[in-house]
């Protein structure tokens, strides 16, 4: 059984990935349309308040797990959270900085599940913090872990 406290001590809250991104206006508009947005601020690149859909950042990914992190099993997508600090204008150069934000367990009848929350913090080229995207992955712990 994995020592979760040791994993927390070794891996939580240190940046293990830094990736640059840029959201193309046409991609932002397509994303918004497919999700059912109808407002001009999401669909019209000429709108003065044109912005990427609030959860667009959830599709921008760097490395998901730190190098050397133990293999637990097959992960499943358990949830996704996004925090919008400032709307993102498509075309803005972005930097995503990734760290493991939470590691916790839940135990049920079928055994222990381990949850990893990976957070990407997005900044513009002036260093303004724009958004956070949390991916929650759940692993069913293997007997030999």
């Amino acid at each position, binding site marked *: 059984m994995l020592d979760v406290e040791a994993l927390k001590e070794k891996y939580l809250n240190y940046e293990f990935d830094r990736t640059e991104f840029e959201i193309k206006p046409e991609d932002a508009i397509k994303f918004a349309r497919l999700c059912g947005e109808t407002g001009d601020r999401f669909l019209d690149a000429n709108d003065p308040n044109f912005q990427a859909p609030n959860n667009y950042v*959830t599709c921008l990914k760097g490395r998901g797990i730190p190098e050397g992190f133990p293999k637990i099993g097959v992960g499943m997508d358990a*949830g996704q959270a996004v925090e919008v600090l400032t709307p993102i204008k498509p075309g803005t150069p972005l930097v995503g900085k990734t760290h493991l934000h939470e590691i916790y367990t839940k135990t049920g009848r079928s055994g222990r599940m381990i949850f990893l929350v990976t957070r990407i913090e997005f900044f513009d080229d002036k260093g303004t913090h724009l958004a956070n995207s*949390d991916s929650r992955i759940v692993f069913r712990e293997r007997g030999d872990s």
Partner: protein
Amino acid sequence: MSINSISEIEFGADLPAFEPDTSLSAGSEFADLVGWTGGRFSSHELAKKEGFPSAIIPGIMSQGYLIAMIHNWAPSAEIKKVDTIFRAPVLADEGHSITGVVTDIDEESSLVEVDLTVTNSKNETRVFGTATVYIP
């Protein structure tokens, strides 16, 4: 009725029902856009080979439906936070609906909390979300 001000919102109010486009073509187009190339999003047959009942809608697209629903209800709303739990796959080409209810109102900070649920045609919950929304 569209909401234009936080003073128009009542605790416990239901948001207008929203029926997202969960067609295979929409889900496949979305998956392609975000670079998710797995066959589970583009083909019922390939999804079945991966153990799904049919093709599925990407989780972040379901999250996008929840956000769009809020904007359809309150066009000037600014999403501050959305937390989404994927309880079960949203199957493509199956009808789904989204319901939402106002669970908290803070007039001082102009923030409301909304619980949102995606259900399938059997009324089974597939995705659950909570949103914190700024209403001018």
